[in-house]
């Protein structure tokens, strides 16, 4: 197995995925280097979300190889994946917020539950506040996700994705609800993998100006 270039963050090599004999993804190959932004577009049900789930190890490919941070993760178990997942921030299509937890607890969840050096309570609170301020929702700490609008929930999802300052950010349809202008129906921009060096997110443009 040839080791991929060290600055490759995410690579798919001839990845195929089939459910019950039906091929859903066929020979997907791409690679993303540190600092790159990759946008995957496709018609509805063409498998964009599946690519995101494959990149997180939530499902396993039928064939092919997936490399994340230079490690071949194709056959990793869930516990091995957890070290990798701690370095990835993710926004799910539906937001994936825990509706029994407040906004603050939701955003703090990755800081408290992923494998990393334990942070002090103040540090967790500071980073949660910082991350929520970035999406302009710093005043919603005590609210439950059900009390927020769809667009606000999406932005809380973004805050949760970036709170750990991950090396790889995966967004599933980040503009589906947040954007004011409706996307063209057939080829909506759906799965964005945004890859940034760790501290850069604080300098990114505010969410408002996204397409």
């Amino acid at each position: 197995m040839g080791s991929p270039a060290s600055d490759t963050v995410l690579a798919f090599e001839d990845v195929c995925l089939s459910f019950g004999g039906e091929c859903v993804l066929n020979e997907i190959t791409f690679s993303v280097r540190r600092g790159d932004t990759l946008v995957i577009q496709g018609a509805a049900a063409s498998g964009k979300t599946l690519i995101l789930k494959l990149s997180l190890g939530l499902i396993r490919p039928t064939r092919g190889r997936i490399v994340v941070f230079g490690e071949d993760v194709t056959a990793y178990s869930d516990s091995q994946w957890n070290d990798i997942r701690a370095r990835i921030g993710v926004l799910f299509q539906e937001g994936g917020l825990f509706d029994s937890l407040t906004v603050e607890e939701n955003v703090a969840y990755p800081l408290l539950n992923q494998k990393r050096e334990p942070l002090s309570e103040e540090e967790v609170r500071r980073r949660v506040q910082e991350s929520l301020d970035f999406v302009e929702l710093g005043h919603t700490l005590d609210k439950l996700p059900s009390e927020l609008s769809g667009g606000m929930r999406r932005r809380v999802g973004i805050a949760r994705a970036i709170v750990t300052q991950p090396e790889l950010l995966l967004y599933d349809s980040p503009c589906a609800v947040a954007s004011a202008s409706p996307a063209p129906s057939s080829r909506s921009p759906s799965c964005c993998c945004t890859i940034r060096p760790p501290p850069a997110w604080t300098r990114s443009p505010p969410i408002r100006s996204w397409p």
Partner: protein
Amino acid sequence: MLDILKRPVYTFQEFILLSIAAIRGVFRKPAYWGDTVIQMDLIGVGSLPVVSLTGFFSGAVMALQMARALQTYGATSQVGKIVAITMVREMGPVLTALMVAGRNSSGMASELGSMKVTEQIDAMRALGTDPVLKLVKPRLLATAIVLPLLTILADFLGLVGGWLVACVLLQLTPGAQYWDTAWRAIEYNDIAQGLIKPFCFAIVLSLVGCYYGMQTTGGTQGVGRSTTQAVVVASVWVVILTFIIGRIFTRL
């Protein structure tokens, strides 16, 4: 032919895999005691009214229906014995389990199902938490702890219900004799099967509820479907298991 069998076999295989993961999870960290206590409150304290009522009235009905049959033989003094044996061996465990299946297996399936369709379970895995440990284990433990306790309560209230009907309403037998025959009728074998049954039911009820929840696909409609399936499958298994366990104990 094989295609017809494929689906149930696959479902059974997935259920067994989840069960193994959950039971192994009981011995793995993190423990999530807080979640377990919350579930015990939801399942145990929450089911108290319905379980008390079912237990009380099933004992009362037993005494009422048996009264006539026993009068034929002039054996009305034995009513306490009959109520005690039926309550402790069968009615208490089975009716309690059916009530908890209706209340909590459905609750687990719909709660976990909603989490599944809104990607919360995927998010949980992506954020480094094992959903089996965080969601299934507390429900399994909580049900396994509280169902035997609920059953004991139902058994006792059933005996009280039987006493009210037999001694106060129909005056078939004096109260002291009722309690004496009831007490003498119960053997260790009855108590053992009366407690092992709810423990086994609890494992099946909680795992079936969680399994159908975690398998949910297809939006809100899917959640409804999982909830129904969970209650139906859990209830049927309770009735099958009570026969199997009863059969084992009658041979002892």
